[in-house]
């Protein structure tokens, strides 16, 4: 979890749901976090602010896990480190 992009996503989710970041991993699902539609748009707002990117509505629709978010952001952020994207375990 040293990947800065993963850390950013975890930090954003931790802030939105008011949970300790240690409880969030790449495999955590939105359902486990109790994310609803308003939480999701708030998370996207946090990520757009922190990463200085614009996340299109369409790209945001299919995300269900932390990994989905990280994978989706790879394509949007120039400074993401690609080698950590597939280190699933």
């Amino acid at each position, binding site marked *: 979890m040293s990947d800065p992009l993963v850390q950013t996503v975890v930090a954003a989710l931790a802030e939105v749901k008011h949970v300790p970041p240690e409880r969030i991993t790449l495999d955590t699902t939105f359902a486990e976090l109790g994310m*609803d*539609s*308003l939480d999701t*748009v708030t998370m*996207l*707002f946090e990520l757009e602010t922190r990463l200085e990117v*614009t996340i*299109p*509505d369409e790209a*945001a629709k299919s995300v269900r896990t932390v990994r989905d978010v990280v994978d989706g952001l790879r394509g949007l952020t120039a400074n993401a480190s690609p080698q950590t994207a597939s280190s699933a375990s």
Partner: protein
Amino acid sequence: MNGSRRVAVTGVGAVSALGRNAAETWSALSEGRSGIARIESVDTAGLRFRNGAEVRGFDPSEHFDPVRLDFLDRFAQFALVAAREALADSGLRISGDLSERTAVYTGSSLGGQTTEDAGFVDLYRRGTNRMHPLSIPRVMANAGASQISMEFGLTGPACTISTACSSSNHAIGHAFWMVRSGLVDLAIAGGSEAPFSHAHLKAWEAMRVVSPDTCRPFSADRRGVILGEGAGFLVLEPLDAAMARGARIYAEVAGFGMSSDAHHLTQPTSSGPARAMRAALGDADLAAEQVGYVNAHGTGTRSNDPAETRAIRDVFGPHADKLAVSSTKSMHGHALGAAGALEAVATVLALHHGVVPPTANFTTLDPECDLDVVPNEARAVRLEAALSNSFAFGGLNAVLAFRAPA
């Protein structure tokens, strides 16, 4: 519980993306013509959506002298123009005791937020360190009600209801109850909204519910709401008084029902809307089978349309398959606090003309929205009664029931 008086709609007025008055608006509604187009009043370069349902060709100076205009935000201008039309249409001239016995009820979600936005731009961006002295009276959400009261010298009950997208239905419903119960002898009721400012559009963008193209309620490929603006107003009076003076009776307001989801700020339920529809039918003494048309809330979001479909099926049972259900937001956009009022005008005129306006921009049916949504073309139908649904963010539901004139 029914009061003793029946309540007639004897005047209608509208300003919308479909036209500058009720006749133009109805003409577009009955032809299935959408008013959705590129947004012109706000620079959309930095926005993820480009389209809206703006009122076009509205020149305030045609309606107000320059001194009066200084006091009027766009949303209050719309309110006055539509209320003037409704009152003129009713043929009533209010004077004497009736002035004290006339209620004014307006709905607005946002008040004069274009004025507020412009003031904040001056203050924060331009560093003017001052706000215009008329900012407060222009921005207040009750400006429409106050301006209508002042213009026509109406000294009876007047107030504004702000319940987001249900504002106007709550306003018309309460005005109806006032007339029915005999607390007043006349009401001018409706709502207005002017939501097109840069900051407000950015706030909608962040919610990710605005369609990047058009509004396709109940279609499988629907992509969200299209914001609209304008005003709608009705003149409500006791049926016997309307008949005694030989007034044109467009329809009766038959009932009003409300409920609260008590669930979530933005996620709809089907149980809350169903309870509001049942309450409206009960208040109207209408059986479900008497209803031929439902003007749906029908926002065109992924969430609303299936939830509303389930609610309609729950309330109407097998009769749901015989109902015409359309969302006129596909044409006049989602006018927020004015939505219920524009849809009330549409529903009243549907009963009056025996024509159901369609759901425009329809492509293919979503199996989760498997109602007769009157796709793309208006339909001539003999209607006995109709409902008009409004379901607000915050879970506040308001449903009006109308009956065709006898």
